């Protein structure tokens, strides 16, 4: 009765808590009974003590109310030094925020499955490495591709130089060859001794007999 009055009059200092035990633990879910409630009260008292060394919150100072099947309930923290007053909501909120991790772990739950409805939890930032991973992979691939391109281009240039050298060499050889390897009726001229041959005098080139163009 007394607690009920507290909840009604100090609604802003009361917090609703919602647990999703089956979602979090599945087959290993424990049932929510009086023992678990006792643990919860103990955790809240511990939190208040840890938050401010002045307070000497007892388990009996934490009052639970309206426990449902969902497993959700309301709680307030009373101040035993000042009779029938509740600890301001802002203090409770700050205390819980500070020790949220410890409370979660006591119940094997997380921020999502043990919800304090008025206290929004800060989400853990994603782990970000100093250099983005994608740049590293990009750099590796880029180096490989550029190396392959350079290799192919250089190989192509060398191949072309070799081909050019080969073709000019062959051309040079052929020009010299035309002088030495002319074939006359199947007989190379070298074997024909032009000096030893007979020169037909009739056909000596007599320029004066021909009319000049």
């Amino acid at each position, binding site marked *: 009765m007394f607690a009920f009055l507290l909840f009604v009059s100090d609604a802003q200092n009361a917090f609703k808590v919602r647990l999703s035990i089956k979602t979090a633990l599945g087959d290993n879910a424990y049932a929510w009974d009086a023992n678990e409630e006792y643990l919860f009260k103990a955790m809240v008292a511990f939190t208040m003590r840890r938050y401010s060394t002045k307070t000497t919150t007892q388990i009996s100072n934490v009052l639970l109310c309206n426990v449902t099947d969902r497993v959700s309930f309301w709680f307030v923290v009373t101040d035993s030094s000042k009779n029938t007053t509740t600890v301001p909501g802002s203090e409770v909120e700050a205390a819980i925020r500070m020790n949220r991790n410890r409370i979660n772990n006591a119940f094997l739950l997380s921020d999502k499955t043990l919800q304090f409805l008025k206290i*929004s939890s800060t989400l853990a930032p994603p782990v970000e490495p100093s250099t983005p991973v*994608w740049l590293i992979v990009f750099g590796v691939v880029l180096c490989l591709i550029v190396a392959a391109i350079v290799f*192919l281009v250089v190989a192509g240039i060398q191949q072309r130089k070799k081909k050019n050298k080969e*073709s000019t060499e062959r051309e040079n050889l052929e020009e010299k060859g035309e002088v030495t390897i002319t074939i006359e009726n199947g007989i190379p001229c070298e074997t024909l001794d032009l000096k030893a041959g007979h020169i037909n005098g009739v056909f000596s080139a007599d320029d004066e007999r021909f009319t000049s163009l």
Partner: protein
Amino acid sequence: GLAGVSTRVGVMDKSRPLWDNPVQFVFACISYAVGLGNVWRFPYLCQMYGGGGFLIPYFIMLIVEGMPLLYMELAVGQRMRQGSIGAWKIISPYLCGVGVASVVVSFFLSMYYNVINAWAFWYLFHSFQDPLPWATCPLNSNRTGYEEECEKTSSTQYFWYRQTLNISPSLEVSGAVQWEQALCLTLAWLVVYLCILRGTESTGKVVYVTASLPYCVLIIYLIRGLTLHGAVNGLIYMFTPKLEQLSNPKTWISAATQIFFSLGLGFGSLIAFASYNEPSNNCERHAIIVSLINSATSIFASIVTFSIYGFKATFNYESCINKVILLLLNAFDLEEGSLTADNLNEMKDYLMATHPQEYAQLLPQLKNCSLEAELDTAVQGTGLAFIVYSEAIKNMEVSQLYSVLYFVMLLMLGIGSMLGNTAAILTPLTDSKVIATRFPKEVISGVVCFINCIIGLIFTMEAGNYWFDIFNDYAATLSLLLIVLVETIAVCYIYGLRRFEKDLHTMIGRKLNWYWKVMWAFASPLLIISLFIFYLTDYILTGTLQYQAWDGTQGQLVTKDYPGYALAVIGLLVASSTMCIPLGALVTFVRKRLKRERVSTVA
């Protein structure tokens, strides 16, 4: 006796480079034809136009349009042994404009198509993180919740629109060049350059990989996809034929268009590839093989896509149900596990009866979850490839592995198509004596890649995706239809069907079947003319052209009108390629006239 005639090596023409073996040629054609369209367009069409029933118009169009036109292009290339400009010049000097138009369209295509490879690289590099970056929303500035834009839409859409594209709210707001995307684009062009650097020598080896690797990945995904929870829903949905769609003319038009664009006709790539063949190559058999494999791949890819769809739809449906259950549990403080998917409807009625007021308050938040609605969201294009698939992947186990495999597959498909596009541009350039004698082919390829890369930076700006959509929708569609129509008429009526038949007989050694002759002379041109008329009337009837813009504040796409200068660009894109055909004929006519006059004055 005469002195021996000396032959000098420099005077003789260098012989044309050839494929090492016919397998390389077939792989090159498959690699070019099997592209992203098979993966992201065909499943959409299948879904929209009657599921399993769509296969009927698809196969009819394949036989009437796909195979004949593919064979014709390969035969022209193999016979003329030149790129598109040279080949059509040989058929008739007035048709050099057709070749030029093909090169222009290929140029437009290669400008914007490689941006897709850049996006694939981006996603690939981001797949090496745990968890995948598109799996969760980033936190807002005071870390109390998630980014607002990400909350309104999903994390995968946010990753695509905000972190990849950084898209602006409309086309007018150009924004700055995104350096990350520019880097990926440069890398994509370097990869393409590496593959085309040595001409057929290097391309021939690369296509072994780009043609076969996507099939390996698709098989892995097929096995994975079929074993996913809920995949069967997607497959049943896809394959139940809705035969009433066959009476819808759009079904037939879509089938015809899909076959046409999927095979990549009219770009000049097929002519270029075939020009590197041995003259005695049996391109008839290859044409049939390539077109059948292309269609089979489309169906195969859509089986994979629909199992993924089914998985994603089931996952979303179950998440939706779970959200509703959680909402009801929290509102009415019921015990956990008392509400399940099975008893949800009865419990809803019960709660409505017992707590009418609270239920009424809650009603706007209770969404009606429906599996059909999830399956009905038909997506195509980049949305399917980058949003839907990545959403499905993030929910799989070992998602990094599947992500890497998938984006490598997209890359292979995209690069394979790029090889064909660049071949269509480079082959006419290397054939032309003016350019080829002055510059080695490495330099020509390098210059082409460089110019395309610089122009492609437009698509990395904040409004880049809107320009991409413009190019994707308008750069190639009308022009290609006109080009292929002119090609078919040219081969059949200007060059002469009998002359072509004789050429093929000398090349391949087999008589031409009447089926090919009938298709080339009548069926295919008629089909293309009707497609052309349909497209024109569609453009004229819809009036102003519109586009989908991403609204970050709402977290969804909104429809907007194109501004004036965008319409001008569209007009320019279509005109610059189609006008080449009559201009080419005109220029040739004028040149011949001038030559005749010059000859007559000299003599």
